[in-house]
């Protein structure tokens, strides 16, 4: 490893939220080079490529928000929430139920779904996970979240059935960006997701509650000694993770076809994104989300059907092989 890289690493604090100047630049460089290569030698219509980039980034914004929830829960509780995708589905069905049965517009339903999902996450941590996480068990919480995932998906299947349903959209029309089309619904989802991500980062960095979360993440015992209520922070963090998913669900509801298994792929996508960004890193989750969004839409130019998703896993294997700590992660 070159000398200057070591120096850069030693100056930054060893917290999951620390920033590394080198990795994001490197990642951005690789992404820009790859995009340029596709424009020049990709053998695809450049308008089509632009369209894919725009849709990829828009998709990536939502991925980022889902992944932030996952990475936050991992960073603080040390639990990989296997029910993350299922919680997204649950949020989507909340919004669906509110819009279709009560006639509340989609985005307003989202505002109702967010506190509901926060409460759900809070209770899950309090009732099911708290005992196991405080004992420091690895397998216990994992199995519980697996059980939770199965329970949510199959309960939804029992209640709503397996037929795809859709939430009526509220905003029609689209915008042209560099000749590419972006519907307002997707733009709202993208900027909404980024806004929430920014608010969350502010919460973590600038408020005393954020500080207590960060302190628990870096050393739970030490935080408890200086008076942080660790159990409460755990529950709040899980709640925030669930709320992130609820926002993502509400924002994507207008253009998603709902089935009880729709969120399943998100669990593994969010995990790949979090691994790419570095476990526990919020900035990493955002960067990773955008990259994976791009990989998926640009991959779709070359590989039909589910082939594009396969490319996402190629990225995953490459990361495991060459940079297992992720772009922003600290090597364990």
């Amino acid at each position, binding site marked *: 490893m070159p000398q200057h890289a070591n120096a850069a690493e030693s100056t930054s604090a060893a917290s999951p939220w620390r920033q590394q100047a080198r990795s994001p630049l490197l990642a951005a460089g690789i992404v820009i080079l790859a995009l340029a290569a596709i424009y020049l030698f990709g053998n695809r219509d450049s308008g089509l490529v632009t369209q894919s980039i725009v849709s990829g980034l828009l998709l990536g914004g939502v991925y980022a928000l889902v992944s932030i929830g996952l990475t936050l829960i991992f960073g603080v509780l040390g639990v990989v929430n296997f029910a993350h995708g299922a919680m997204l589905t649950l949020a989507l069905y909340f919004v669906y139920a509110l819009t279709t049965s009560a006639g509340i517009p989609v985005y307003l339903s989202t505002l109702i779904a967010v506190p509901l999902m926060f409460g759900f996450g809070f209770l899950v941590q309090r009732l099911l996970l708290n005992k*196991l996480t405080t004992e420091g068990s*690895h397998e216990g919480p994992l199995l519980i979240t*697996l059980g939770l995932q199965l329970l949510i998906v*199959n309960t939804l*299947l029992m209640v709503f059935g397996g037929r795809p349903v859709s939430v009526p959209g509220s905003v029609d029309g689209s915008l042209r960006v560099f000749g590419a089309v972006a519907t307002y619904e997707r733009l709202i989802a993208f900027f909404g997701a980024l806004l929430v991500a920014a608010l969350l980062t502010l919460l973590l960095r600038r408020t005393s509650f954020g500080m207590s979360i960060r302190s628990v993440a870096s050393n739970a015992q030490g935080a408890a000694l200086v008076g942080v209520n660790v159990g409460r922070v755990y529950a709040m963090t899980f709640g925030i993770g669930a709320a992130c998913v609820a926002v993502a669900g509400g924002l994507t509801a207008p253009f998603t076809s709902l089935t009880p298994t729709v969120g399943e792929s998100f669990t593994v996508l969010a995990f790949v994104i979090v*691994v790419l960004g570095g476990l526990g890193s919020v900035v990493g989750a955002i960067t990773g989300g955008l990259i994976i969004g791009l990989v998926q839409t640009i991959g779709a130019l070359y590989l039909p059907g589910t082939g594009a998703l396969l490319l996402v896993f190629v990225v995953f294997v490459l990361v495991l092989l060459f940079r297992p700590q992720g772009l922003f992660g600290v090597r364990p």
Partner: protein
Amino acid sequence: MKQTETELPRVAADDPRLRDTDLRNSLITLGVLAVVLAVLPLVVNERIESILVLTLIFAIMGVGWNLMSGFGGLFSFGHAAFFGVGAYTNAYLVIEYELSPWIAMIIGAVFAAAIGTFIAFLCLRYKLAGAYFALATFAFAQMFLLLAQNLEFLNKTDGLSLPILGEESFWHMQFRQGNDWYVWIPSGLLVIALGITILYARSRPGRYVQAARDDEVAAASLGINVMRTRLVAVMLSCAVTAIAGAYYAQYYFFVGPEQAFGTHVSVQAIVPAVLGGIGTIWGPLVGALIVGPLAEYIKELLRDPPSYLEFLQGVSGLDVAVYAVLLIVIVLFMRKGIYGTLKDKITERKNQ
């Protein structure tokens, strides 16, 4: 009169109390199990036989999962990957090269073991254990699902159908429907898998891997090559799981991406072991004996519900929801599973 000195009783080397009863008891239990499984298909009807086969497949998967996740402490959420590799390898070799399933099964097991060892090596290289390892295996299973759906030679989403021969043949593992061999073969495979578990758990590599599971640093400091012992556990585990997959393909004459690599397959490997008792020899079997018949019973119930459960008519998902609740309850309140907790209770009583 009081005794001032008590002399410790001398124990001769051939004292019956020093005899290794643990191995003997395990092997006797295994023998009894083998006899029961051999007799069962003779007395039950065809419908129960089909449930029995499914239960046996669950049990073999659970035993396989338990080898690496229970004894090795390496939680896998992606055992579908190895089950599927076993199933597809078997189907492909039988169709393309007309190999005997017995040979195809072994090739599939070796292949799955190689893949599993490579994946585990990638993850363990940077000590990415625990939850990270679990999700990484899950991601690999998903990747294989997508591969199977996209590869031309595996017939994409249509899957592979095995040719049906006109005659019965043990070598080609094909019999008339309802033939008892369809139960005896997985029974034999299960008995072998359990035998492997019994011997492995007592062997040197088996003891090493359990030591590494309980305290990695301490184990390494005593000179145990943690990585190598873990990879041995992974290898055995993947091979056993692949055998279950190969038999699945053989029994149903079909394998598709979802049946081989779907998430529910990974779950079916985990649930029996967790219910019965992680890291115990008989746990996965006990769990499978609960899960297999229960799943069938619920399906039956939903097909034709009694009047007070009318609202459940045609609803799907209840069987998995029930597993899910069982799983959560067991993890929360019976950490060692049903068999593990019972065993502890019995030893406690004996010691009193």
